[in-house]
């Protein structure tokens, strides 16, 4: 039972990170119906920028959560600028183009960011400096560390904030309107272009925080870390129902827990034939299953395809 609890705790922590990134995917898709392939890479940039900042501070001898916070504060505007730039340069010119074009452009952006990061930071796995003492707490027979608690708290607060902005503010109303019907929203006086840019801004900001948290949690940063993370976060968004904020959050947590339980028990359940090295395959299969059998996801509306 302890082991089960441990897996669930790990799963929730990992899942909340997925949820944070999934919010970015779902908001962008809701408004311009494009899968922002580059979003995972924006998370990676956040992690790497944070890494550089934290490295500098650690070299001076600073330690503690303040260092991490400064890293986050520097990463956020960087990622926001990046997100805005991507939207303006690679997506906006292609809004009226045939379906294939913005998709290919998105793939191009994703690869370009990866390669730029490799050129700037190198291809090695870089080390997130040890600036935290990270005490452990015991719940039953399971262990939860301070970092894990901070991740849960931070992601929870951010998700709440996002939900509040989207549901309770005028800006949020404009966002929801643009997502429902951009042309009519425009007629109602909403500057749709501006709203789209703001959506990217918000998503990228969340991505920055997620990036630094991931780097702190696992202790490594690398130019390839965005790909798998982005794919899994997208799976989470689809699982929960793309376009739905609650869906993204639920999907993220669910995916994290399923992945951990799966990796932990897959080997024992299948008696060694399918081991934990298949856990990535599990994520992909889930994605395909959801897209094929229930494309609207768990919390999405069952609608017919918009023509």
């Amino acid at each position: 039972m302890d082991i089960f609890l441990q897996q669930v705790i790990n799963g929730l922590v990992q899942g909340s990170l997925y949820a944070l990134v999934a919010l970015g995917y779902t908001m962008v898709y809701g408004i311009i119906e494009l899968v922002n392939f580059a979003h995972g890479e924006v998370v990676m940039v956040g992690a790497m920028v944070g890494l550089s900042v934290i490295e500098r501070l650690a070299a001076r001898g600073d330690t503690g959560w303040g260092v991490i916070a400064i890293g986050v504060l520097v990463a956020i505007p960087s990622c926001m600028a990046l997100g805005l730039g991507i939207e303006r340069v690679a997506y906006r010119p292609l809004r009226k183009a045939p379906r294939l074009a913005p998709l290919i452009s998105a793939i191009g952006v994703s690869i370009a960011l990866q390669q730029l990061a490799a050129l700037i930071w190198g291809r090695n796995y870089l080390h997130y400096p040890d600036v935290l003492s990270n005490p452990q707490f015991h719940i039953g027979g399971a262990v939860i560390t301070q970092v894990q608690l901070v991740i849960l708290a931070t992601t929870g607060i951010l998700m709440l904030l996002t939900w509040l902005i989207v549901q309770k503010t005028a800006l949020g109303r404009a966002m929801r309107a643009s997502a429902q019907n951009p042309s009519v929203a425009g007629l109602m006086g909403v500057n749709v272009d501006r709203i789209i840019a703001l959506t990217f801004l918000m998503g990228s900001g969340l991505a920055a925080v997620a990036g630094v948290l991931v780097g702190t949690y696992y202790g490594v940063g690398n130019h390839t870390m965005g790909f798998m993370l982005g794919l899994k976060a997208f799976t989470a968004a689809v699982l929960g129902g793309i376009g739905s904020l609650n869906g993204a959050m639920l999907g993220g947590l669910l995916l994290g827990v399923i992945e951990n339980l799966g990796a932990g028990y897959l080997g024992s359940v299948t008696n060694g034939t399918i081991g934990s090295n298949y856990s990535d395959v599990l994520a992909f299969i889930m994605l395909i299953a959801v897209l094929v059998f229930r494309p609207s996801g768990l919390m999405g509306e069952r609608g017919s395809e918009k023509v």
Partner: protein
Amino acid sequence: MNKRILIWLLCLAVVLALPFGTDALLGRSWVRLLDFALLYAMLALGLNIVVGYAGLLDLGYVAFYAVGAYLYAMLASPHIGMHWPLWALLPMGALLAASFGAVLGAPTLGLRGDYLAIVTMGFGEIIRLFLRNLNITNGPAGIDLIDPIQIGGFSFGSSHSLLGWDLPSIYSYYFLFVVLTALIVLVSYRLSDSRIGRAWAAIREDEIAAKSMGLNTRYLKLMAFAMGAAFGGISGVLFAGFQGFISPESFTMGESVMILCMVVLGGMGHLSGVIMGAILLAILPEAFRPLSQFQQITFGHVWLDPANLRMLMFALALIMVMILRPEGLWPSPVRRRELHPNDAMPASAQKEGP
């Protein structure tokens, strides 16, 4: 008419003389590179059917390459101990890849562009992960000591004497690949101008309109996947025999993206453009090699890794091509008109082939 025949003869002469010329100018390893480039050309032509003709963005195309390669590797090497001949394995590879194409395509039939791309990407990764983890495919170690390709008694893997002249194995492979590429080009050309080709074009432009005109879009999409996959499988079989060694590392998503780049940058749907894209992108890594040597000599350290630089250039090229010239660098005039509907039509516009 005469001009056309002249051009064809010129091209034929260039193609036949290319290995000899390259060897003399650049050295034999470049001829080997040319062989790889032809394999990529076959792959690009296959993906061209899926992406260029039918408009389906397949991001996991390399899986069919892997299927063909592993089939040949398992049945023509000491791995299981079977040594089947090429005339059996080549069609088997094509068929097996085609069935994989149909199986992978089936669940995606109802999906739209974005989702289709991601699902195909997922499939590509799943196949690679399985190849990497299954015992029968020898896991990450891959399969080596694969039989070189043989037709009749003629082994492509060893050098031969032809009329007193030396014919090294990479030359033999070159001519074999040229023949097969030409066959694939022929099939693609006939397809594009057939009922199926025109049906694919209809789906590409507006699927709902196509459906309402009575086209069986499900069947047509499956056909596109299967045919494209078949070509990929053929290339895979040849690859395994040529390199003598395969491992899951050769079939990553990066490769799928490379092949996509070749099709998109070269000219989606245009056969000459696709082949040009394939050859250009295949030889570019070697062309970048002097850059790293230059950096080593000047700085003693490689600051800008040419592999990353190269991929960065591809990615930026993709974005720019999509924004400025989505029909590719060497498109068919029909396609260019399609994608720039607001440009004035030149007075001398003739209808040329794809």
